[in-house]
């Protein structure tokens, strides 16, 4: 391919090619620079930052980090984030894989299941602010404000439309013979789903899990109204309140920011493939 190109492309074309490559790499560096700025400030002393924002720290300085862990209650909010994210994602996968399977296999009662599918799709377009006030009212009257249960229920409810949509698309690619064969073997539907279908859904489950994990981890709208109490705040909430106050120690705040990025980026690097798959999958069909 490369040789083929060389033969055909005139010099000006090759120059253009190199120019575009350099431009793309430059844009990529610009895109990464805010992260660089954030991490570097986390290691620097205020004096070093005052001298130059972009320079590297003169030595690896971990004081900011130990301060940050203390002042932001890092481990408490980390625990809260993990609780909310893990439970929500497990419930999302359980519910939407079941529903996605049945909606995709709507050989009987077609209109009914198609109706449910359309209802869920309509739910995708509704912004959270439209149900914000009634949701707040319900949470208040059921005393679910400031509980993990309340937050998780809302997060799951807002996430199942997209997750189900992804499952429906995937199940349609699985040959029907698979579940028919299992039914003839005398399995009931639940056993059949658990033993035959769910294992086949693994690729899309990975996608749904990665996407929803990331989105729930960064979730802001629901947490803002439900998880206000200090001891229940997730990482984004904790940071919202922490950064919202007058931050006197900028470098400490950047250390806190850097600290909170570590779990997300580790997760993101591992699951990038599935996340990208989930986004383009939804886009192509939507």
């Amino acid at each position: 391919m490369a040789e083929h190109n060389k033969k055909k492309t005139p010099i000006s074309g090759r120059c253009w090619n190199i120019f575009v490559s350099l431009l793309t790499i430059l844009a990529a560096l610009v895109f990464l620079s805010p992260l660089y700025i954030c991490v570097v400030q986390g290691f620097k002393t205020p004096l070093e930052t005052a001298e130059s924002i972009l320079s590297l720290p003169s030595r690896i300085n971990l004081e900011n980090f130990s301060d940050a862990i203390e002042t932001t209650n890092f481990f408490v909010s980390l625990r809260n984030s993990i609780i909310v994210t893990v439970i929500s994602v497990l419930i999302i996968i359980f519910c939407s894989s079941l529903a996605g399977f049945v909606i995709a296999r709507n050989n009987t009662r077609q209109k009914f299941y198609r109706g449910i599918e359309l209802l869920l799709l309509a739910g995708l377009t509704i912004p959270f602010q439209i149900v914000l006030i009634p949701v707040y009212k319900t949470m208040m009257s059921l005393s679910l404000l400031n509980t993990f249960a309340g937050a998780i229920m809302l997060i799951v409810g807002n996430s199942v439309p997209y997750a189900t949509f992804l499952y429906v698309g995937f199940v349609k690619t699985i040959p029907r013979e698979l579940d028919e064969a299992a039914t003839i073997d005398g399995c009931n539907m639940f056993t059949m789903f658990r033993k035959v279908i769910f294992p086949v859904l693994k690729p899309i489950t990975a996608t749904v899990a990665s996407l929803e994990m990331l989105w729930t981890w960064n979730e802001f709208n629901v947490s803002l109204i439900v998880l206000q109490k200090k001891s229940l705040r997730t990482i984004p909430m904790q940071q919202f309140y922490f950064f919202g106050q007058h931050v006197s120690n900028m470098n400490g705040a950047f250390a806190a920011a850097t600290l909170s990025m570590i779990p997300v980026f580790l997760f993101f690097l591992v699951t990038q493939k599935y996340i990208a798959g989930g986004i383009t999958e939804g886009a192509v069909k939507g």
Partner: protein
Amino acid sequence: MRSAFVGDAVPVVRDGSQEIVMDDKKMQKRKRIIRHELTKFLFVVPVLCFFSFSILIPFLSGIEISFTNWDGFSAEKDFVGLKNYINFFTNPSVLRPIKNTVIYTILTTVLGNLTSLLFALGINRNFKGRAFCRMAFFLPTAISMVLASFIWKYIFRDLFSQMFGIKNLLGQTSTVLLGLTLIHMWIDVGINMLVYLSSLQTIPKELLESAEIDGAGYWKRFFKVTLPMIVPAFTTCITLSITFGLKEFALPFTATQGGPMDASVTIGMYIYNNLMSYKRAGYGQAVAIIFAVAIVLISGFVSGTLRKKEVEF
């Protein structure tokens, strides 16, 4: 298929003494079908429960709230009829958030899509560092709005003034929406870029090559072959960008709190403020309902118009 039920033999009782006329096998079959249908329904019950609890029921009860004067915290509320809706059309305070949201949506849609298309075109070639660039554009999508706001607030305030002598974009009423757009693009461009990229990769190489043989230059190939082929990606990305722009809440909320002087209050924030600060939940909900109708109409219109332009190959 209702016929499974209707067509079956129905037990007929004659004189009370006669045996029930019923094929045992058919009876069993019917039982099995009912059980099967019930199990099937059970599969969708969990999703329906969560969905109803957090979207469907709140949406419906929101319509009710919009006709009341609920203040957002007390137990009682009175029915006020169309007053909130009349307020919406007569109260000029809503014009500011509408204007802000529209400008912000146009900025993010146009700049965001141009940038992500350019990035996708840049990446859709063979060169060293391709994987690195792809990762760099995509990585910021993993960051929470709170964190992005914090980092960018600092960049706008300290770095830009120190390095380029540019005044804080977020600090002035005339530039605050542009500043927010830049933050939004940083977080969001990676997603649209992926959609454009996967669409670009579906273009058959032969098509571009034959156009080249026919003497079409780079730009001609781009406008006559590439662009028409990726219209489906435009449909998706532009519709999504417009909806996201109209919905925007977290970014202005965390970066500027709507300031300076309400220059970055979006409709989403206006609804939130009516509940939490102004204690006018009923009115806020009326705004929300009108807003929902507007979003459905706008995104329906946009995706409909773009779909018509899609080229089928």
